[in-house]
């Protein structure tokens, strides 16, 4: 060993186990145990295993000992619930098969575990000698198991098989004979992922690949015996509440909770009624769930690496619905919340009512007969003013004063016919849309008079009707229309100065909002897409996000959160933008009813019309916004990471992206190991495969970067990233989309993926080179004012996909090194291409590498290059063939020759260190670091001994993150940091 210390600094990966005990939350994340104090939320991390993830956590009866299982190993910790200290009591014990579940038995003097091949194994806690094994007659692979009972002779085993069955068997500890299956529960159509049995309530619950839960009833039993009357087991319910596989279930005193791949947590009562439903971060595959009896809350974790607490008792459906139906043969047709949380209700007879909530009183305010034929009722943003528009173009304005509505004024728009739409812009201005796309801007000038302030026309189209409008700064107005176009007006011009055609699809724009602080505009579309734009005299699109809802309606603020109100079929949905999750879902029957949503100090309120009545749902904020114990990260594989480092700062910025199509910007700390995501950008249509960043300029404490992200569907997005620091800390990060390159392909055209990017700067021009899966290279130029243009396109290899790109300036030559899926490494001279790039037109040519080496049998997945003196280069590549290849290249071209050429003078390779694809490489001094899908991090010494190149393995470290896709490296003095990413991230600290 070389005296090098490697340790984990930061880690985020799948949460595979969660258990609550005496005020502490135990979470198994990777090979570590995270112990969080429920009250203080302080976290203690202890390493449980070297390589195995934690799958099972079980407490002894007085919770002073913790049994932790992972894969085929287990260990016991001592736990002091007074100070929360958790220490290893024993060494790790191994068993030759995967342990699916384990339990303390015989007054905590023994441990029972069920293995994947349907065996029960018993260890005694004196010496941990394997006491006995009990084998079930049915020998097949299990996906789940449950042990009932507390005494060795009276255990009942529930085994969930890959063949869709649950076997109930009783181990026979006295003889070596195979144990008979007492009964088999059949009915599931897929592998069984979890089983729970609660003898007190007499239910068995199972979850399966077939997306269902099955609840089986038995006779209630005394838990001390754990015995079960197998003849009494009957299928009680089959519950369908998940749209994907159901991974975990737990039976509580009165309820069953289940969580699944669709990030949904469902609550069921014992009658099979779905009484609660909660959605975690979209795409988060839930693996672990537990219940805190004291606080009545559910704790969940999954593939986003986060641990969340959900309040449970307030989370039940329908106990908070209030119904108003006291109309005298009148039907409510429109409703709106006023500022006091009281409702304004308009009836089909043209009567306006005011509903006083606390007094539960409905008062008639006034009747306008013209409203019988047609009516619009809109409430201003401040919810003090209410407007009513009728069939003849009259506008009535009411104001809420105290607990009543007062008539403010009546105004007649002097164009008979309808007001098609009415938008409150501020508390005293509104916009009306009438015939021929005519928009009129009015001001409540005097409390009793309405004055026309401007007139606009929507461009001619089939349906010239506005659907949303907002002021944008002092002199601009933005209007959305029914065809999905966004129009920007200046107050003294009749026609729009800018029109963004089809900002949303033909279903139209539903909402527009302007933020004067950061000058951003947000639009919601009926196509389920949220778009943001930067406003600087003109609108420039920055972000486009498709939400899992179909009909977005409105934006609502709730404290510091932003909520999007939308509909999905007949369900009203509240989406939290920041945490990317559904906050509330209410089955109200669809969007074609009048409804209103309001947030108040402690509540979220939703009212809607159904069956001629007004229904009011109130939710406590505390019950719908969960508490995060451990912050979450990407929900799927991370394909690319870019570290941004600053001199004299212990903070770093991490940009990451992957299969979940989001880009996350996070701030981390080298000292404490903390990592917090500050922003999630969702603009990519498909997975993100590469991220590159280049410093553009520095002004004061702010550094500006060009950020490029690319991936599936041949999409490349250019961003401007600004990072400002203050007092030695990162204070502010702004990321703005500059341009998105994505051409929709024609029907028969193939769509490529962008595999890698490379950026270089030359004479103040930034060049971006993209490698495509069809073997082509694209070159873009980015001039000073961020004008981006594709200047070159050509094919490097027609039959092979390019996997990685690397730019290197060597002997005054800009070289591009490309690796291919065929195992080739190609060197391309960029000089000609970049020099001729001044021309304005896109050039199409083929690229001819001046040098090609075949170094691997198939795909090259990682590459690193370093100058070794004047004329030598050390090239190291890692491939899908488990091989690391190191070659020392020497320039063989003549000095004054324009052309450059290499020869391999020494080379060596190693295929012993890794047993899977090598995805990350790094060279630092005379050391080489590699990571692979096999989760090994390996350090080599690189030595040139005479005319021989040597790679000698010096240190190894096991990374708890599976499916590693790459590595970022940073060296600061004696300490190096390696950030490995894949199904999560792990930051390693390497000290010499």
């Amino acid at each position: 060993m070389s005296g090098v210390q490697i340790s984990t600094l930061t880690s985020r990966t799948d949460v595979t186990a969660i258990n609550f005990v005496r005020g502490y939350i135990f979470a198994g994340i990777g090979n570590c145990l995270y112990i969080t104090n429920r009250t203080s939320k302080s976290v203690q991390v202890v390493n449980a295993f070297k390589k195995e993830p934690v799958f099972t956590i079980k407490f002894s009866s007085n919770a002073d000992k913790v049994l932790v299982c992972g894969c085929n190993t287990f260990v016991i910790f001592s736990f002091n619930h007074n100070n929360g200290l958790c220490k290893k009591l024993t060494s790790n014990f191994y068993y030759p098969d995967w342990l699916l579940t384990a339990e303390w038995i015989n007054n905590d003097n023994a441990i029972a575990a069920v293995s994947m091949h349907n065996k029960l194994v018993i260890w005694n806690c004196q010496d941990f000698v394997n006491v006995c094994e009990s084998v079930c007659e049915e020998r097949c692979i299990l996906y789940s198991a449950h042990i009932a009972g507390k005494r060795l002779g009276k255990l009942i085993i529930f085994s969930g098989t890959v063949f869709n069955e649950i076997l109930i068997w009783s181990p026979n500890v006295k003889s070596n004979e195979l144990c008979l299956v007492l009964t088999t529960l059949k009915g599931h159509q897929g592998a069984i992922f979890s089983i729970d049995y609660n003898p007190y309530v007499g239910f068995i619950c199972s979850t399966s690949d077939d997306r269902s839960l099955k609840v089986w009833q038995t006779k209630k039993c005394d838990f001390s015996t754990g015995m079960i009357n197998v003849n009494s087991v009957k299928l009680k319910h089959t519950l369908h509440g998940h749209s994907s596989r159901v991974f975990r279930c737990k039976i509580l005193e009165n309820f069953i909770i289940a969580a699944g791949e669709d990030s949904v947590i469902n609550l069921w009562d014992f009658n099979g009624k779905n009484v609660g439903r909660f959605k975690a971060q979209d795409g988060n595959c839930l693996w672990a769930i537990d219940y805190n009896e004291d606080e009545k809350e559910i704790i969940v974790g999954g593939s986003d690496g986060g641990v969340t607490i959900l309040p449970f008792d307030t989370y039940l459906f329908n106990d908070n619905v209030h119904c108003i139906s006291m109309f005298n043969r009148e039907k409510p047709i429109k409703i709106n919340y006023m500022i006091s949380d009281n409702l304004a209700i308009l009836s089909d007879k043209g009567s306006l009512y005011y509903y006083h909530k606390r007094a539960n009183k409905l008062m008639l305010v006034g009747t306008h007969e013209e409203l019988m034929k047609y009516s619009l009722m809109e409430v201003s943003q401040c919810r003090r003013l209410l407007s009513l528009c009728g069939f003849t173009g009259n506008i009535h304005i009411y104001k809420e004063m105290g607990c009543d509505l007062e008539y403010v004024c009546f105004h007649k728009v002097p164009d008979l016919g309808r007001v098609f739409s009415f938008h409150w812009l501020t508390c005293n201005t509104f916009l009306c849309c009438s015939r021929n796309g005519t928009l009129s801007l009015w001001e409540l000038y005097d409390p009793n008079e309405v004055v026309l302030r401007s007139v606009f026309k929507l461009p001619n189209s089939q349906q010239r009707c506005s659907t949303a409008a907002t002021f944008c700064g002092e002199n601009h107005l933005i209007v959305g229309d029914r065809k999905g176009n966004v129009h920007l007006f200046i107050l003294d011009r009749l026609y729009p100065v800018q029109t963004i055609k089809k900002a949303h699809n033909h279903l139209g724009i539903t909402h527009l909002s302007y933020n004067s602080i950061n000058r951003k505009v947000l639009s919601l579309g009926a196509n389920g897409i949220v778009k943001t734009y930067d406003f600087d005299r003109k609108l420039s699109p920055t972000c486009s996000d498709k939400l899992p809802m179909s009909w977005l309606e409105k934006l609502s603020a709730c404290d510091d959160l932003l909520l999007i109100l939308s509909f999905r079929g007949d369900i009203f949905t509240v989406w939290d933008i920041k945490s990317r999750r559904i906050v509330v879902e209410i089955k109200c029957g669809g969007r074609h009813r009048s409804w209103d949503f309001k947030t108040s100090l402690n509540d979220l309120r939703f009212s809607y019309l159904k069956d001629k009545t007004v229904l009011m749902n109130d939710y406590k904020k505390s019950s719908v916004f969960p508490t995060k114990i451990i912050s979450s990260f990407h929900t799927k594989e991370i394909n690319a990471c870019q570290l941004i480092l600053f001199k004299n700062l212990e903070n770093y910025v991490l940009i990451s992206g992957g299969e979940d199509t989001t880009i996350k910007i996070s701030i981390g700390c080298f000292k404490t190991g903390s990592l917090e995501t500050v922003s999630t950008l969702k603009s990519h249509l498909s997975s993100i495969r590469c991220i590159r960043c280049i410093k553009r300029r520095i002004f004061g404490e702010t550094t500006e970067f060009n950020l490029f992200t690319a991936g599936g569907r041949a999409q490349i997005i250019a961003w401007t990233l600004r990072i400002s620091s203050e007092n030695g800390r990162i204070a502010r990060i702004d990321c703005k989309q500059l341009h998105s390159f994505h051409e929709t392909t024609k029907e028969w055209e193939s769509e490529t993926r962008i595999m890698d990017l490379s950026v270089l700067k030359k004479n103040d021009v930034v060049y971006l080179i993209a490698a495509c899966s069809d073997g082509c290279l694209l070159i873009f130029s980015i001039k000073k004012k961020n004008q981006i243009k594709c200047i070159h396109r050509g094919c490097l290899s027609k039959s092979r996909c390019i996997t990685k790109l690397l730019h290197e300036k060597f002997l005054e030559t800009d070289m591009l090194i490309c690796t291919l899926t065929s195992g080739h490494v190609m060197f391309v001279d960029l000089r000609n291409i970049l020099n001729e790039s001044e021309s304005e037109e896109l050039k199409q040519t083929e690229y001819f590498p001046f040098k090609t080496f075949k170094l691997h049998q198939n795909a090259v997945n990682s590459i690193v290059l370093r100058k070794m003196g004047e004329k030598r280069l050390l090239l190291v590549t890692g491939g899908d063939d488990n091989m690391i290849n190191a070659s020392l290249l020497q320039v063989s071209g003549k000095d004054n020759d324009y052309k450059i050429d290499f020869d391999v003078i020494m080379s060596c390779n190693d295929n012993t260190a890794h047993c899977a694809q090598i995805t990350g490489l790094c060279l630092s001094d005379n050391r080489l670091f590699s990571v692979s899908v096999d989760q090994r991090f390996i350090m080599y010494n690189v030595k040139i001994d005479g005319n021989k190149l040597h790679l000698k393995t010096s240190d190894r470290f096991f990374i708890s993150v599976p499916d590693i896709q790459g590595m970022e490296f940073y060296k600061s003095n004696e300490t190096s940091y390696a950030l490995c990413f894949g199904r999560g991230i792990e930051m390693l600290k390497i000290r010499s």
Partner: protein
Amino acid sequence: MGKVSKDKRDIFYRKAKEEGWRARSAFKLLQIDEKFHILDGVKRVVDLCAAPGSWSQVLSRKLYLGERIETLRLHNPLSSSCNKDDLASSNPEAAIPVAGNSNEKKFNEEVKIVAVDLQPMAPLPGVIQIQGDITKYSTAQEIIKHFEGLKAELVVCDGAPDVTGLHCMDVYIQSQLLLGALHIACNVLQKRGNFVAKIFRAKDNDILTNQLLMLFESVHVAKPTSSRNSSIEAFVVCQNYNPPEGFDPTCITPFLDVSNKNFSKLSGVNRIIIPFVVCGDVSAFDSDTTYPLQLEGEEKYQYREPVQPPIAPPYSLFMHKKLTTGKISQDDKSLENDLYHVADYKRDKNKMSYMTPMIQNIVESDNSPLSNSILNNEELLEDNSSASVFSPDTVKEKIEQSENFPLFESLDLPFKDAEQEIMALRISSEKENNEDLELPKKENILSQYQSRTSNTGISEEENDPETNQKRQWLELFLQAIQDDADDPANMEEIDRKLKELRAQSQNIQKSTCLECTSNINF
């Protein structure tokens, strides 16, 4: 869109359909065979975990039907310089006989192919199916029965578990599946026989592959180019079965020996590195590369239906339930895809034979709301009309009908389904396009306005600047709202007037209340 996108993404998926394979994995066995010649002269072969049957199909076509199947090749690989004549002769499609022709061929009746799976599988010529569990000894006995006492020369297994998403569990279960297959192989394989099975190359797979050397003389880890670069899948190709003296295959425990789990202990001379081999040469297709749909030198591309859709997936019951109750959650992508499939099939009833009976029932019974609405919805997407409940036509009609019209009943649509709702909206919005409300004359309005202002007591004096301005604004508005306002001449005039008036008028006071949420941070 949608249907072709998978063809665009994956050359092997497309080629599999074009060449009649049930799954793209057929190419993996073909490429392995190309490298290791494991199918040469083989007469008794076992395919474990066979469903949906693409490997059995390869065995059937190569061994039983005696087809000469060339592996897929790119017609004009950049590196090779073959001329046009070579291209024609190496056309892989030319080598494959059309289904009708194969009847005239002589079958190799000596060949016995036994396919084992728990799931049923559509029949294949020359393939004997056993629906059984590969972990049971009785299954091994049944296999040998078909070989008339002889043992198999080759055992292949392309089985993979239900991937849970938890990496280390999936890798473990895959290794158990391989050991299960090895277990049965040891019971049915003759000495010097070969064994091919799928492995996952991830954490510590070297320990597993090392142990195979105890039973076989040569072991390779092979990755065909039809397997993606990003995929952890590979295949162990074990040749020359040669168990140690006195080895009892019934005693082999189907677990890994994990006592030696520390890979650092395995380093150095004690550790044998299993050679890794790539199958598929320079001219073979590569699954990571994007190829144009229309490849040079090939006949015109056309979309083809999958040869064999999956039989009874675990969620089929769920699908059925959702379909019949008409309830479906929208965020379920995979389900949606399945449903779209149903829609596709419904269009083309000839394809019905491929469907499972359950899905057929759903499609046949037209009262299922979803199968209809999907079709409608697809059409809807192409329709450009927007949606609204209010249609002037209906309004007018109702007004004419009675004084107390129950107009707003339509507000509470009794629809259960989003799709139906959209459908209904489409109908209503279609009607909306005819807008023929009677429009008042400009002059009338002005006089009306004048009379109103006089009634409310506002001074009628022409000289009052405020009233004058209001009047001008109104005139401008009335000019703007007319049908001819969009004529270029009028447009310019209105625009000019607007500018003038705006210059005269005072700025709008955009007062905001404390509670105003206009400044929302996003």
